[in-house]
Protein backbone atom coordinates (compact mmCIF):
# COMPACT_ATOMS: atom_id res chain seq x y z
CA UNK A 1 0.00 0.00 0.00
CA UNK A 2 1.45 3.35 -0.96
CA UNK A 3 1.70 5.96 1.74
CA UNK A 4 2.19 9.36 0.21
CA UNK A 5 4.37 11.16 2.68
CA UNK A 6 4.92 14.12 0.45
CA UNK A 7 1.58 15.43 1.64
CA UNK A 8 2.77 15.72 5.19
CA UNK A 9 3.80 19.30 5.89
CA UNK A 10 6.39 18.05 8.36
CA UNK A 11 8.45 16.03 5.96
CA UNK A 12 10.89 17.34 3.42
CA UNK A 13 10.01 15.33 0.41
CA UNK A 14 10.34 17.96 -2.26
CA UNK A 15 12.74 16.97 -5.07
CA UNK A 16 15.49 19.24 -3.75
CA UNK A 17 15.34 17.50 -0.40
CA UNK A 18 16.24 14.28 -2.10
CA UNK A 19 19.50 15.71 -3.28
CA UNK A 20 21.36 14.80 -0.14
CA UNK A 21 21.14 11.84 2.12
CA UNK A 22 20.19 13.89 5.13
CA UNK A 23 18.14 16.27 3.05
CA UNK A 24 17.99 19.99 3.04
CA UNK A 25 18.88 21.54 6.36
CA UNK A 26 15.71 22.28 8.26
CA UNK A 27 16.19 25.70 9.78
CA UNK A 28 14.35 27.14 12.71
CA UNK A 29 11.27 28.36 10.97
CA UNK A 30 7.74 28.71 12.34
CA UNK A 31 7.43 24.95 11.94
CA UNK A 32 9.80 24.46 14.87
CA UNK A 33 7.68 26.63 17.08
CA UNK A 34 4.76 24.46 16.16
CA UNK A 35 6.72 21.39 17.19
CA UNK A 36 8.44 22.44 20.37
CA UNK A 37 6.56 25.57 21.42
CA UNK A 38 7.54 29.16 21.14
CA UNK A 39 9.40 30.28 24.27
CA UNK A 40 13.05 30.44 24.87
CA UNK A 41 14.51 32.17 21.89
CA UNK A 42 18.04 33.25 22.45
CA UNK A 43 19.30 36.67 21.50
CA UNK A 44 22.27 36.42 19.16
CA UNK A 45 24.45 38.75 21.14
CA UNK A 46 24.06 40.66 24.30
CA UNK A 47 25.87 43.94 24.61
CA UNK A 48 25.22 44.03 28.36
CA UNK A 49 26.89 40.67 28.99
CA UNK A 50 29.88 41.62 26.94
CA UNK A 51 30.25 44.83 28.93
CA UNK A 52 29.95 42.87 32.14
CA UNK A 53 32.65 40.51 30.94
CA UNK A 54 34.96 43.39 30.17
CA UNK A 55 34.41 44.97 33.61
CA UNK A 56 34.84 41.61 35.33
CA UNK A 57 38.08 40.96 33.46
CA UNK A 58 39.36 44.43 34.37
CA UNK A 59 38.78 43.90 38.08
CA UNK A 60 39.65 40.22 38.42
CA UNK A 61 43.20 40.45 37.17
CA UNK A 62 42.87 36.98 35.68
CA UNK A 63 41.80 36.14 32.17
CA UNK A 64 38.18 35.13 32.30
CA UNK A 65 35.36 35.04 29.84
CA UNK A 66 31.62 34.63 29.81
CA UNK A 67 29.80 32.22 27.55
CA UNK A 68 28.27 33.74 24.47
CA UNK A 69 24.88 35.14 25.35
CA UNK A 70 22.19 32.55 25.82
CA UNK A 71 24.46 29.56 25.45
CA UNK A 72 24.96 26.82 28.00
CA UNK A 73 27.53 26.71 30.79
CA UNK A 74 27.30 22.92 31.07
CA UNK A 75 30.79 21.57 31.87
CA UNK A 76 32.19 19.41 29.10
CA UNK A 77 33.08 15.77 29.62
CA UNK A 78 36.33 14.13 28.57
CA UNK A 79 38.65 17.01 29.29
CA UNK A 80 41.95 17.31 31.09
CA UNK A 81 44.19 20.14 32.09
CA UNK A 82 47.46 20.44 30.23
Amino acid sequence: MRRDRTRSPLWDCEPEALQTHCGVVPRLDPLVERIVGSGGRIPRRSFCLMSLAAVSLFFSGRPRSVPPAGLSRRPAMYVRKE
Partner: protein
Amino acid sequence: MPKSDVFICELCPKRCRIEEGQSGDCRARIVVDGQLRAVTYGRPCAIHIDPIEKKPLFHFLPGSRIFSIATAGCNLHCKNCQNWTISQVAPQDIRNIRLPPDRVAEVALAQRCKSIAYTYTEPVIYYEYVLDSSVRAREKGVRNVTVTAGYINGEPLKRLCTVVDASNTDLKAFSDNFYREVCDARLKPVLDGMVTMKENGVWLEVTNLVVPTFNDDLEMIRKMCRWILAHLGADTPLHFSRFYPMYKLRNLPPTPVDFLMKARREALETGLHHVYVGNVLGTDAENTYCPRDGTLLIRRTGYSILENNLKDGKCPTCHEKIAGVWS
Protein backbone atom coordinates in the same frame (compact mmCIF):
# COMPACT_ATOMS: atom_id res chain seq x y z
CA MET B 1 48.42 38.56 35.88
CA PRO B 2 48.09 34.85 36.83
CA LYS B 3 48.26 32.44 33.97
CA SER B 4 44.98 30.72 33.07
CA ASP B 5 44.59 26.97 32.70
CA VAL B 6 44.89 25.26 29.37
CA PHE B 7 42.56 22.35 28.58
CA ILE B 8 42.87 19.39 26.27
CA CYS B 9 39.53 18.18 24.93
CA GLU B 10 39.68 14.36 24.86
CA LEU B 11 36.37 13.87 23.10
CA CYS B 12 37.60 13.51 19.55
CA PRO B 13 40.92 12.56 17.98
CA LYS B 14 41.77 16.20 17.31
CA ARG B 15 42.50 16.68 21.02
CA CYS B 16 42.21 20.47 20.81
CA ARG B 17 44.30 22.55 23.19
CA ILE B 18 41.98 25.29 24.40
CA GLU B 19 42.72 28.37 26.47
CA GLU B 20 40.38 30.72 28.32
CA GLY B 21 37.88 32.31 25.97
CA GLN B 22 38.82 30.06 23.07
CA SER B 23 36.84 27.28 21.46
CA GLY B 24 37.90 23.93 20.08
CA ASP B 25 38.03 23.26 16.38
CA CYS B 26 34.35 22.29 16.53
CA ARG B 27 33.34 25.75 17.87
CA ALA B 28 30.97 24.11 20.36
CA ARG B 29 33.32 23.59 23.28
CA ILE B 30 34.61 26.77 24.85
CA VAL B 31 36.69 27.49 27.94
CA VAL B 32 34.62 29.88 30.03
CA ASP B 33 35.41 30.91 33.55
CA GLY B 34 38.19 28.38 33.99
CA GLN B 35 36.24 25.38 32.68
CA LEU B 36 35.66 23.74 29.30
CA ARG B 37 31.95 24.00 28.56
CA ALA B 38 29.61 22.37 26.10
CA VAL B 39 27.92 25.61 25.08
CA THR B 40 25.35 24.04 22.77
CA TYR B 41 23.98 21.77 25.49
CA GLY B 42 20.19 21.99 25.22
CA ARG B 43 20.44 24.58 22.44
CA PRO B 44 19.57 22.99 19.09
CA CYS B 45 19.70 25.10 15.96
CA ALA B 46 17.79 22.64 13.78
CA ILE B 47 14.73 20.58 14.69
CA HIS B 48 12.65 18.57 12.32
CA ILE B 49 10.56 15.46 11.93
CA ASP B 50 11.82 13.20 9.18
CA PRO B 51 11.03 9.79 7.80
CA ILE B 52 13.72 7.45 9.13
CA GLU B 53 14.65 6.55 5.54
CA LYS B 54 16.08 10.05 5.20
CA LYS B 55 18.94 9.35 7.64
CA PRO B 56 19.28 6.89 5.79
CA LEU B 57 18.36 3.91 7.94
CA PHE B 58 16.68 1.17 5.89
CA HIS B 59 16.85 -1.69 8.40
CA PHE B 60 15.71 0.14 11.53
CA LEU B 61 12.01 0.75 12.21
CA PRO B 62 11.17 1.28 8.53
CA GLY B 63 8.39 3.72 7.78
CA SER B 64 8.62 5.43 11.16
CA ARG B 65 8.95 9.11 12.01
CA ILE B 66 12.14 10.28 13.67
CA PHE B 67 12.54 13.46 15.70
CA SER B 68 15.73 15.04 14.40
CA ILE B 69 17.86 17.65 16.10
CA ALA B 70 21.24 19.33 15.70
CA THR B 71 23.31 21.99 17.34
CA ALA B 72 25.74 24.32 15.56
CA GLY B 73 29.34 23.31 14.83
CA CYS B 74 31.29 20.29 13.64
CA ASN B 75 34.68 18.72 14.27
CA LEU B 76 35.12 18.03 10.55
CA HIS B 77 35.27 20.62 7.80
CA CYS B 78 34.30 18.71 4.68
CA LYS B 79 34.56 20.72 1.52
CA ASN B 80 31.40 19.05 0.27
CA CYS B 81 29.37 19.59 3.45
CA GLN B 82 25.67 19.73 2.68
CA ASN B 83 24.75 21.35 5.98
CA TRP B 84 27.57 23.88 6.15
CA THR B 85 25.23 26.74 7.05
CA ILE B 86 24.87 25.20 10.51
CA SER B 87 27.91 22.93 10.78
CA GLN B 88 30.56 25.47 9.87
CA VAL B 89 29.35 28.32 12.06
CA ALA B 90 29.80 29.18 15.72
CA PRO B 91 26.76 28.62 17.96
CA GLN B 92 26.70 32.30 18.93
CA ASP B 93 26.33 33.30 15.28
CA ILE B 94 23.16 31.37 14.65
CA ARG B 95 19.69 31.25 16.07
CA ASN B 96 19.23 28.49 18.66
CA ILE B 97 16.34 27.56 20.87
CA ARG B 98 16.19 26.08 24.32
CA LEU B 99 15.23 22.42 24.39
CA PRO B 100 16.57 20.70 27.50
CA PRO B 101 17.29 16.95 27.37
CA ASP B 102 14.19 15.96 29.32
CA ARG B 103 12.00 17.80 26.81
CA VAL B 104 13.49 16.13 23.75
CA ALA B 105 11.81 12.76 24.29
CA GLU B 106 8.58 14.41 25.42
CA VAL B 107 8.35 16.38 22.20
CA ALA B 108 9.33 13.33 20.16
CA LEU B 109 6.53 11.31 21.73
CA ALA B 110 4.05 14.14 21.29
CA GLN B 111 4.93 14.10 17.61
CA ARG B 112 4.45 10.31 17.36
CA CYS B 113 8.13 9.66 16.74
CA LYS B 114 9.55 6.29 17.75
CA SER B 115 13.09 7.55 17.81
CA ILE B 116 15.33 10.59 18.05
CA ALA B 117 18.10 11.35 15.56
CA TYR B 118 21.10 13.40 16.52
CA THR B 119 21.94 14.47 13.03
CA TYR B 120 22.46 17.21 10.41
CA THR B 121 25.71 18.44 11.99
CA GLU B 122 27.89 16.17 14.15
CA PRO B 123 26.49 14.65 17.33
CA VAL B 124 30.00 14.10 18.69
CA ILE B 125 30.39 17.81 19.34
CA TYR B 126 27.20 18.01 21.40
CA TYR B 127 28.07 14.77 23.14
CA GLU B 128 26.73 15.66 26.60
CA TYR B 129 23.38 16.74 25.13
CA VAL B 130 23.11 13.50 23.15
CA LEU B 131 24.02 11.42 26.18
CA ASP B 132 21.56 13.06 28.58
CA SER B 133 18.74 13.22 26.02
CA SER B 134 19.29 9.57 25.12
CA VAL B 135 19.14 8.41 28.73
CA ARG B 136 15.81 10.18 29.22
CA ALA B 137 14.51 8.95 25.88
CA ARG B 138 15.32 5.35 26.78
CA GLU B 139 13.36 5.76 30.02
CA LYS B 140 10.34 6.77 27.94
CA GLY B 141 10.76 3.96 25.41
CA VAL B 142 12.08 6.17 22.62
CA ARG B 143 15.11 4.92 20.66
CA ASN B 144 18.22 6.90 19.84
CA VAL B 145 20.00 7.25 16.53
CA THR B 146 23.21 9.03 15.62
CA VAL B 147 23.99 10.17 12.11
CA THR B 148 27.67 10.77 12.40
CA ALA B 149 31.07 10.94 10.81
CA GLY B 150 32.21 8.76 13.67
CA TYR B 151 35.20 10.95 14.53
CA ILE B 152 35.33 10.31 18.25
CA ASN B 153 37.72 8.77 20.75
CA GLY B 154 37.19 5.23 22.01
CA GLU B 155 36.18 5.89 25.62
CA PRO B 156 33.44 8.46 24.96
CA LEU B 157 32.15 6.32 22.12
CA LYS B 158 31.86 3.23 24.30
CA ARG B 159 29.84 5.22 26.80
CA LEU B 160 27.60 6.56 24.03
CA CYS B 161 27.00 3.03 22.77
CA THR B 162 25.24 2.19 26.03
CA VAL B 163 22.34 4.49 25.12
CA VAL B 164 22.37 4.61 21.31
CA ASP B 165 20.31 2.04 19.41
CA ALA B 166 21.36 2.70 15.83
CA SER B 167 23.78 4.74 13.82
CA ASN B 168 24.31 5.73 10.25
CA THR B 169 28.00 6.43 10.01
CA ASP B 170 29.60 8.19 7.08
CA LEU B 171 32.59 6.40 5.69
CA LYS B 172 33.59 9.30 3.52
CA ALA B 173 36.26 7.45 1.59
CA PHE B 174 38.57 4.53 2.15
CA SER B 175 41.53 6.85 1.96
CA ASP B 176 43.39 8.71 4.64
CA ASN B 177 44.40 11.32 2.05
CA PHE B 178 40.75 12.06 1.34
CA TYR B 179 40.05 12.48 5.04
CA ARG B 180 43.02 14.83 5.45
CA GLU B 181 42.48 16.90 2.35
CA VAL B 182 38.71 17.07 2.13
CA CYS B 183 37.52 16.64 5.72
CA ASP B 184 40.36 17.80 7.96
CA ALA B 185 40.33 14.45 9.77
CA ARG B 186 41.89 10.98 9.58
CA LEU B 187 40.49 7.63 8.46
CA LYS B 188 41.61 5.24 11.19
CA PRO B 189 39.56 6.62 14.11
CA VAL B 190 36.45 6.33 11.95
CA LEU B 191 37.12 2.68 11.16
CA ASP B 192 37.90 1.93 14.80
CA GLY B 193 34.71 3.70 15.85
CA MET B 194 32.53 1.61 13.55
CA VAL B 195 34.02 -1.59 14.91
CA THR B 196 33.38 -0.35 18.46
CA MET B 197 29.74 0.40 17.64
CA LYS B 198 29.27 -3.03 16.11
CA GLU B 199 30.91 -4.75 19.08
CA ASN B 200 28.70 -2.82 21.47
CA GLY B 201 25.43 -3.82 19.85
CA VAL B 202 24.56 -0.61 18.01
CA TRP B 203 22.66 -1.28 14.77
CA LEU B 204 25.00 0.16 12.14
CA GLU B 205 24.45 1.29 8.56
CA VAL B 206 27.24 2.87 6.54
CA THR B 207 26.99 5.68 4.00
CA ASN B 208 29.59 6.45 1.37
CA LEU B 209 29.00 9.71 -0.50
CA VAL B 210 30.66 9.33 -3.88
CA VAL B 211 32.28 12.63 -4.89
CA PRO B 212 33.38 12.79 -8.55
CA THR B 213 37.17 13.03 -9.02
CA PHE B 214 37.77 12.66 -5.25
CA ASN B 215 36.63 9.19 -4.23
CA ASP B 216 34.95 7.73 -7.33
CA ASP B 217 37.55 5.02 -7.61
CA LEU B 218 36.23 1.47 -8.02
CA GLU B 219 39.41 -0.06 -6.62
CA MET B 220 39.09 2.06 -3.47
CA ILE B 221 35.42 1.11 -3.21
CA ARG B 222 36.32 -2.57 -3.56
CA LYS B 223 38.82 -2.26 -0.70
CA MET B 224 36.25 -0.45 1.41
CA CYS B 225 33.67 -3.19 0.81
CA ARG B 226 36.18 -5.90 1.71
CA TRP B 227 36.94 -4.06 4.93
CA ILE B 228 33.24 -3.74 5.78
CA LEU B 229 32.72 -7.43 5.07
CA ALA B 230 35.65 -8.46 7.24
CA HIS B 231 35.10 -6.09 10.17
CA LEU B 232 31.40 -5.25 10.25
CA GLY B 233 29.86 -8.26 8.54
CA ALA B 234 27.95 -9.00 5.34
CA ASP B 235 24.65 -7.88 6.85
CA THR B 236 25.79 -4.29 7.42
CA PRO B 237 23.79 -2.17 4.99
CA LEU B 238 25.88 0.10 2.77
CA HIS B 239 24.43 3.20 1.12
CA PHE B 240 26.19 4.76 -1.85
CA SER B 241 24.97 8.30 -1.92
CA ARG B 242 24.89 10.63 -4.89
CA PHE B 243 26.87 13.85 -4.50
CA TYR B 244 25.34 17.17 -5.52
CA PRO B 245 27.46 20.30 -5.80
CA MET B 246 27.70 21.86 -2.34
CA TYR B 247 29.68 24.34 -0.27
CA LYS B 248 33.28 24.46 -1.57
CA LEU B 249 32.84 21.81 -4.23
CA ARG B 250 30.23 23.50 -6.35
CA ASN B 251 32.50 23.23 -9.37
CA LEU B 252 31.96 19.47 -9.55
CA PRO B 253 29.11 17.71 -11.35
CA PRO B 254 26.68 15.41 -9.54
CA THR B 255 27.85 11.79 -9.35
CA PRO B 256 26.87 9.91 -12.51
CA VAL B 257 24.13 7.42 -11.64
CA ASP B 258 25.88 4.83 -13.78
CA PHE B 259 28.93 4.95 -11.49
CA LEU B 260 26.80 4.49 -8.37
CA MET B 261 25.24 1.41 -9.93
CA LYS B 262 28.70 0.03 -10.73
CA ALA B 263 29.79 0.64 -7.15
CA ARG B 264 26.70 -1.19 -5.92
CA ARG B 265 27.46 -4.18 -8.17
CA GLU B 266 31.03 -4.28 -6.84
CA ALA B 267 29.80 -4.23 -3.26
CA LEU B 268 27.30 -7.02 -3.88
CA GLU B 269 29.96 -9.09 -5.65
CA THR B 270 32.27 -8.56 -2.68
CA GLY B 271 29.66 -10.31 -0.56
CA LEU B 272 27.71 -7.53 1.14
CA HIS B 273 24.02 -8.42 1.39
CA HIS B 274 22.30 -5.06 1.44
CA VAL B 275 23.66 -2.31 -0.78
CA TYR B 276 21.63 0.77 -1.71
CA VAL B 277 21.95 3.81 -3.91
CA GLY B 278 20.68 7.02 -2.35
CA ASN B 279 19.65 10.43 -3.68
CA VAL B 280 18.55 8.81 -6.93
CA LEU B 281 14.88 8.19 -7.53
CA GLY B 282 13.20 5.36 -9.34
CA THR B 283 15.77 2.56 -9.28
CA ASP B 284 15.58 -0.90 -7.76
CA ALA B 285 18.69 0.00 -5.77
CA GLU B 286 16.41 1.52 -3.12
CA ASN B 287 14.72 -1.81 -2.41
CA THR B 288 15.60 -4.50 0.10
CA TYR B 289 15.89 -8.05 -1.24
CA CYS B 290 16.34 -11.32 0.57
CA PRO B 291 20.04 -12.22 0.37
CA ARG B 292 19.17 -15.92 0.11
CA ASP B 293 16.46 -16.15 -2.56
CA GLY B 294 16.19 -12.59 -3.91
CA THR B 295 12.56 -12.04 -2.85
CA LEU B 296 11.58 -8.36 -2.84
CA LEU B 297 11.14 -7.50 0.83
CA ILE B 298 10.76 -3.73 0.98
CA ARG B 299 10.02 -1.56 -2.05
CA ARG B 300 10.90 2.10 -1.67
CA THR B 301 10.93 5.29 -3.63
CA GLY B 302 12.68 8.26 -2.11
CA TYR B 303 11.68 8.27 1.53
CA SER B 304 8.46 6.39 0.99
CA ILE B 305 7.82 2.72 1.52
CA LEU B 306 5.57 1.35 -1.20
CA GLU B 307 5.54 -2.25 -0.03
CA ASN B 308 6.79 -4.10 3.05
CA ASN B 309 6.61 -7.88 2.74
CA LEU B 310 8.69 -8.78 5.79
CA LYS B 311 6.99 -11.17 8.20
CA ASP B 312 8.36 -10.80 11.72
CA GLY B 313 11.68 -9.69 10.26
CA LYS B 314 11.86 -12.74 7.98
CA CYS B 315 11.62 -13.35 4.25
CA PRO B 316 8.05 -14.48 3.48
CA THR B 317 9.33 -17.04 0.95
CA CYS B 318 12.34 -18.79 2.49
CA HIS B 319 11.92 -17.54 6.10
CA GLU B 320 15.50 -16.26 6.17
CA LYS B 321 15.96 -13.87 9.09
CA ILE B 322 16.78 -10.43 7.70
CA ALA B 323 19.28 -8.39 9.70
CA GLY B 324 17.82 -5.25 11.24
CA VAL B 325 15.61 -3.83 13.96
CA TRP B 326 12.10 -4.15 12.61
CA SER B 327 9.91 -3.33 15.58
